[in-house]
């Protein structure tokens, strides 16, 4: 179905934007952890984006994307009032949410927006949500206001110290885990969404504590409905398809090394595609 864009908000101009789409069927069914696949033009590719928020009453879903290549750069040229050719969803298994006490939700980069929907789900389930977010600097922090509205605590780290802790999110996370343990708090789960190196660092950090840790994997997808195997990841002894078996998996079981390598499968062509797009733009 062709889907109209109701609002567009430039969160970090030229790099990260938020779109609110009118997609009542998807909004009615979307749960935290779900994503959609969109296509912008007849010659376009299918790209997955996480549903960062939904408003079932208004029939809208929210997407947040980082401009990294051809398709996201193309998407950045879309404005409110334009329509997106194809939006398919909601896809993926929803986050497994149950009352478990304290849940630490870690987000990095645009992963913060994706994490937001999961954090919201945990808050609705009555969990004590602690959001831990990080970025290079204050102006690159996303969704802080939205997270403040639904989290019991929001902890911030920036590389340059322009806001919150100066350093990595994992350092803030470790402090918070320690603090919780000392206070006898039951930390039921840790959720991490962001760049793969961050998710891997979180997995390594929490492993010795034996706390259940969940990551949302963004492997390369084509159909998103389990028909191609492009998105396959190794989890424990098994090969799983991130689009239908995930995208969330037990962080302690994921082969991040393999996943990072597979994300680079098409890097040469992706560069070519982006250059091709830029050349076309300059000709127009």
């Amino acid at each position, binding site marked *: 179905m062709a889907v109209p864009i109701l609002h567009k908000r430039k969160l970090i101009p030229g790099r990260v934007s938020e779109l609110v789409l009118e997609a009542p*069927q998807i909004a009615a*069914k979307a749960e935290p952890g779900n994503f959609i696949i969109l296509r912008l033009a007849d*010659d376009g*590719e299918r790209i997955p984006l996480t549903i960062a928020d939904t408003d079932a009453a208004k029939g809208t879903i929210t997407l947040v994307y980082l401009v990294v290549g051809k398709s996201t750069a193309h998407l950045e040229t879309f404005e409110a009032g334009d329509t997106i*050719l194809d939006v*398919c969803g909601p896809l993926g298994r929803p986050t497994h949410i149950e009352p478990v006490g304290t849940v630490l939700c870690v987000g990095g980069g645009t992963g913060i927006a994706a994490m937001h929907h999961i954090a919201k789900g945990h808050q609705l389930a009555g969990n004590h949500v602690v959001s831990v977010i990080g970025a290079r600097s204050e102006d690159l922090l996303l969704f802080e206001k939205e997270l403040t509205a639904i989290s019991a605590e929001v902890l911030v780290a920036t590389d340059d110290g322009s806001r919150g802790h100066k350093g990595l999110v994992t350092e803030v996370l470790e402090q918070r885990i320690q603090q919780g343990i000392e206070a006898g708090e039951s930390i039921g789960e840790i959720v991490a969404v962001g760049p793969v190196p961050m998710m891997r660092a979180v997995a390594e950090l929490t492993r010795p504590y034996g706390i259940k840790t969940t990551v949302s994997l963004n492997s390369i997808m084509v159909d998103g409905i389990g028909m191609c195997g492009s998105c*396959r990841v190794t989890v424990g002894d098994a090969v799983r398809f991130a689009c239908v078996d995930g995208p969330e998996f037990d962080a302690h079981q994921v082969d991040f090394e393999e996943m990072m*390598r597979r994300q680079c499968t098409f890097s040469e062509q992706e560069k070519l595609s982006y250059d091709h797009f830029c050349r076309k733009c300059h000709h127009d």
Partner: protein
Amino acid sequence: MTKKKSKILPRRSMPMQDPAARVGNFNEVANGYSLELAQEEARRCLQCKTPTCQDGCPVEVDCKRFIRELAEGQVEQAFRTIKETNSLPAVCGRVCPQENQCEGRCKLRPTGQPVAIGRLERYVADAFYAGTACEATVGREDCPMIREDLRVAAIGSGPASLTLAGYLAAQGVKVEVFEALHLPGGVLSYGIPEFRLPKSIVRTEVETLKEQGVEFHMNWVGGKTMTVGDLFDQGFKAVFLGLGAGLPRFMKLPGENLIGVFSANEYLTRVNLMGGYRFPDYDTPVFPGRKVTVIGGGNVAMDAARTALRLGAEEVRIVYRRTQEEMPARLEELEHALEEGVQLEILACPVAFQGDEGGRLTSMRVQKMCLGEPDESGRCRPMPVEDEAYDLETDLAIIAVGSGPNQILLNATPNLGLNSRGYIEVDQETLETNMPMVFAGGDIVTGAATVVEAMGAGRQAGKEISRRLLKQG
């Protein structure tokens, strides 16, 4: 017998694109008969008193009759005859494994030169231009008005659902087709390449169905966007599941996740559905392979191998556990692949994929096989030859060793009865599942089969559904 044989002219060959030229493009390989050639071929038919050709066709096309009509120059009448039972002749004429079906049962088969029924069917479908959508769908002009109160949902838009939709529309029943991908057609769109089945043919079939009142909803995932229950809540009277068998099977070998190892489904989807052969004008990248190995011996393997050649591979090898004789591919596809320069590595079974430090595929370890005693399927069982394994250099390996049922809807519909292989269980007569008024057909019931068998199932379910709905009034 010998006397008869001498009178029979040789089977008319079909004009083809030259192999050297065609590996450089994605245009259709077989150009089709001219009227003259088609009529010459049609006149080879013996018009048998008890023809056997029709028994070989899963949808029972009256081959003898349409061939006679064609021989007499009545193309329109031939079209109507075919359309009585086959809603997609332009597709079937191109992709049916005729040697196992109609032509396999032709009385002339023993001469090695059966009537080219498939090519004639294709000719008729391509040559006749139907005046109305009703005529194009069922070959008649008396389709009733669509009754909007009798709504049937078909999930999936492969040949099974398209046939069901055409059949029901012709009975005046409203059909809405729901498809997860952005284009309709199922395997006809995402799997079978342009050079074998031009996508314009699939588009035309879909457009005709639309004119007939069939509605198409794309990007709609059954079990996710809506459930089967939701459809009944919305007033649909019956639901048909034509989900297909698109789950790619891997081999669980070491190194299978290296960069450069793909399922045939991924490779073909990138090229066909996404137009990746036109990259970078189209966005979807296709992995470039210099030395390509394709694993498997069916149509899917042939399509992947021939696609890789067209995308500029220096060398393409098909690695198969048995020998050329056992390959399940359509005869014509195998012949075309060989003509185009695809090499066969028979009696070979991959055991591992090997890569460099960057995780990129560099070679495949292969076990030499020999043929043992026939197994349950009647084919000789391949057995490893001890101590005979070797490496094949390759930077792109495409796995085409079979597929399983598409999972999403099955997972979302736990009450649906499945068989031990994970496919949907149906009543053989009605194609109804264990859920009342939920029907299923095509690959999701049989496992990977053929286009025409999926169509047969769509027609069978359509008959049953219309019988029940129209009886209720």
